[in-house]
C-alpha cells in the first residue's frame, strides 16, 4: 500500500484482477447456459403436453424471421400430432400486454379452430392476489375445451368468469388467445 506505486503497476494490477474475473465468469457461463436451454425446453414441452392433451408429439412450424445469432428461425406455432401422426390441433406461445406487464400465454386449439383445448400462463408480472390469479387452476381450467364462440368474459356473453378486481388481466388472456387463433387461421 505504498503511496508511490507507479501508475503502470496500478494499471497492471487492475488488468490482472479483471482478467482473473473474466476467466472465472467464462468458466461459469458454459454450464449455466446449457442448463438454461434445458430448463426452457423442458418448460415448453411440459406446457405443450398440458394444453393439447390428445397430442403425443409436437412439430415446430418456422416463420422466416431469424431470432438469434445461431440463425434459428422464429417458431410460429406447433403442430400437435397424435400417435398415428395426424394433426389433432395447434399449440402456440403468445405475448400480450396485461395490466402490469407482459403476459406469456401458452394455448392450444383444435385442428378446425372451433375450440381451445387448454392454456397455461408461462410468464406474467400481474398484481399479487389479483391479476396474478390468472395462473390459478380455477381460472385456467375454465379454458379447457371452451368453444371459440364462448371465449369471452361472462359479462360479454361468454363462458369465462372474470377474476374479481382483475378485469384487465382476465381480458388480456382472452385477447391473447383470440388474437393468436385469428393469426393461425391465416398462417396454416
Amino acid at each position, binding site marked *: 500500500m505504498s503511496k508511490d506505486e507507479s501508475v503502470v*503497476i496500478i494499471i497492471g*494490477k*487492475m488488468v490482472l484482477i479483471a482478467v482473473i*474475473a473474466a476467466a472465472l*465468469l467464462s468458466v*461459469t457461463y458454459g454450464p449455466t*447456459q446449457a442448463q*438454461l436451454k434445458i430448463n426452457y425446453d423442458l418448460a415448453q414441452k411440459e406446457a405443450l403436453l398440458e394444453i393439447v392433451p390428445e397430442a403425443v408429439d409436437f412439430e415446430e412450424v418456422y416463420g422466416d424471421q431469424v431470432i438469434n445469432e445461431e440463425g434459428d428461425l422464429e417458431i410460429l406455432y406447433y403442430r400437435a400430432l397424435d400417435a398415428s401422426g395426424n394433426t389433432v390441433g395447434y399449440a402456440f406461445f403468445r405475448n400480450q400486454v396485461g395490466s402490469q406487464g407482459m403476459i406469456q400465454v401458452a394455448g392450444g386449439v383444435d385442428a378446425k379452430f372451433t375450440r381451445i383445448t387448454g392454456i397455461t400462463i408461462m410468464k406474467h408480472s400481474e398484481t399479487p392476489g*389479483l391479476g396474478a390469479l390468472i395462473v390459478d387452476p380455477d381460472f385456467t381450467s375454465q379454458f379447457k375445451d371452451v368453444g371459440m364462440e364462448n371465449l369471452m368474459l361472462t359479462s360479454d356473453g361468454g363462458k369465462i368468469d372474470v377474476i374479481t378486481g382483475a378485469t384487465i388481466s382476465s381480458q388480456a388472456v382472452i385477447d391473447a388467445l383470440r388474437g393468436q387463433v385469428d393469426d393461425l387461421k391465416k398462417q396454416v
Partner: protein
Amino acid sequence: MSKVVDEYIRGITTDNPIFGLVLGLCPLLAVTTSVENGIGMAAGAAFVLICSNVIISALRKQIPAAVRLPIFIIIIATFVTIVDMSMEAFTPDMYTQLGVFIPLIVVNCIIIGRAEAYANKNNVFYSLIDALGSATGFLLVLVLMGAIREILGTGAIAPFGYTLISIDINPATFMIMPPGAFLTIAILMAIVNYRKAKKLVRGD
C-alpha cells in the same frame, strides 16, 4: 477464541446489517414476500459477502489504495454475476421471484461496506468470521420479515413446498404488496429502537 465468537455475534446484534447499520433495505423490502425468497436472497448475498470479504482481505496488501474501490467492485461484481448465472440456471423459480435484486447485490451497501470497513484492514480469518456474522444477521432479518409478511399475506408459511404453519384467516394481500414491506420494517425497527432506548435509560 472468545474474540472469534464476539466478532461473529457482533454481525447479528450491534452491527446487524439491517437494524444496526440500516444497510441493504432495498432488497429487504423488495424480496421478503415469503420466507423462501428471503432465504434465497440471503443465500445469494451471503455467498458474495463471504467470497468477496475473503478475497479482498487476502489481497489487501496488494490493492493500491488509490483504486481500491474499483477493485472491490470488480471482485464483488464477479461473484454476483456467478450467483446470478447459477441461480438463473439451477433455481429458475426463485430467480424469477428475486428478479433484478440478484444483479443489484453488486451495489448492496452491506458488501462494499464490510469490504471497506473490515476486510480491507483485517486478516483473512477474521474477515471470514465477520462476513459469516453479517450474513447470518441479514438472513435472520430477511426470514423474520418474510415470515411475518407471508403468514399475514397468504395465511401460511410454506418455504420450498413444505407447509410449516397454516392459519385459517382471510389473508391480507396488503402485506405481500410493497406497502406491507414498509409497514413491517417500520414496526420492527420501532420495536428494536424502543428496546435500545430503554437500555440507554437503564445505563446498560
